[in-house]
């Protein structure tokens, strides 16, 4: 059974078709990278998967449970209970972190598990400290986001997502807002998650990273999946648009 199944997804903004009949499935433990030129709909696809955007066509299932589907022209979701459960299956790491600036690092990590998931406080704090340690931020738990570098912020954001114990973690260009010298520390953390067998879907412009870390790569262009396969298959393919895309990258 797939952890995530997106079937024939369509998404329009007004009359602009941004996602055109895309189907993606992600197995448990798999790492999928999504690459492609900007404006090709990568973020929108993740936002549909995480239900920040309503789909205009298709169906989304998590663990075989329907999370979004169409009835006529309208997107539907299951009831409150089921939705809450489905919501806990996934986490999302944003390009711009979106940490809560008025909360300390610790509170950013623990507020949702304690007050939303209603988990045991001591246990949550203990797990949060372990997570921060894993992120190399053990001395930052009382700091506020404004006191941290971009790389540290993004690592806190990753820890915040992990603190809810999601089954699958989405990353939307996690290093694009960072200075080049801070990119490495974030990629290193994501790599360390790969060793823990966490299922991940990563939208990235870090080609070497995508090639090295992924089990599977999708190349998107203009709202469609142009190529899909193992990293080697995709990066060495003779596909015209892919060649052009990689060419642009190598010039930079």
């Amino acid at each position, binding site marked *: 059974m797939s952890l995530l199944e997106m079937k024939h997804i369509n998404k329009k903004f007004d009359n602009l078709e941004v996602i055109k009949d895309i189907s993606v499935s992600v197995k448990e433990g798999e790492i999928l990278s999504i690459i492609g030129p900007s404006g090709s709909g990568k973020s929108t696809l993740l936002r549909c998967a995480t239900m*920040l955007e309503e789909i205009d066509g298709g169906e989304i299932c998590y663990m075989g449970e329907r999370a979004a589907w169409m009835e006529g022209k309208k997107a539907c979701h299951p009831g409150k209970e089921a939705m809450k459960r489905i919501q806990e299956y996934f986490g999302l790491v944003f390009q711009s972190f*979106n940490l809560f600036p008025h909360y300390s690092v610790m509170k950013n990590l623990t*507020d*949702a598990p304690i007050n939303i998931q209603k988990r045991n406080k001591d246990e949550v704090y203990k797990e949060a400290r372990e997570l921060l340690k894993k992120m190399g931020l053990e001395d930052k738990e009382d700091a506020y986001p404004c006191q941290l570098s971009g790389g540290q912020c993004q690592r806190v954001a990753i820890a915040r997502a992990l603190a809810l114990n999601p089954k699958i973690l989405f990353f939307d260009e996690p290093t694009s807002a960072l200075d080049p010298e801070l990119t490495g520390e974030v990629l290193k953390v994501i790599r360390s998650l790969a060793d823990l067998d966490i299922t991940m879907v990563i939208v990235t412009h870090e080609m070497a990273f995508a090639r090295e870390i992924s089990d599977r790569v999708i190349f998107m262009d203009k709202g469609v999946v142009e190529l899909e396969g193992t990293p080697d298959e995709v990066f060495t393919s003779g596909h015209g648009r892919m060649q052009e895309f990689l060419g642009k990258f190598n010039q930079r």
Partner: protein
Amino acid sequence: MEFSVMLGQLAEGMVQSICIFALTLIFSLPLGLLVSFGRMSKNRIVSTIFRIYISIMRGTPLMLQLLVVFYGPFYLFGANIGGMYRFIAIILGFSLNYAAYFAEIYRSGIESMPRGQYEAAKVLGYNGRQTFMKIILPQVIKRILPSVTNEVITLVKDTSLAFALAYMEMFTIAKQIAAANTTFVPFIVAGVFYYVFNLLVAVVMEGIEKKLNYYH
């Protein structure tokens, strides 16, 4: 007239002015938040109603509004408007007026919040209410504090408008004493009172701003 007697009378007025000030804030700050929700409502009819309300409250003199609230019930329904109603009308008039100003301040603050904060909260499982109360509102309060301070300082001075309803607050009493004793002194006392009151307001608001300065 003895200066101490005059001060005694003025002090009673000061207490009334402070009452008007405090009660207006207590009612208009939460009311303003509700009005801002109405103003931002997705329902076009609701948002239009609140838009008109705000526009009237900001577009007409507060003194006129006080007169309407006080005399309105009498002219409209022939209601008896004596006794406590004078004070109630003042608090009502001030609160309705200030709620409109505060509503626009809240709205600007809420609309200035980046969408990412809502989205992060949603993905983390916060519902709409939790998102607003825990994530959005605390940040909005910090953002709007300088504008709120401005309004609060204006309110201190505006309490003197209660003289339009001949309410025995600071300014009304100062005018009476001045007229009866042909002396300018009560106005000086009144001026000092409003000034010191506002100094205090500034100190308190600055204190709150400092307290919220632990992040930006």
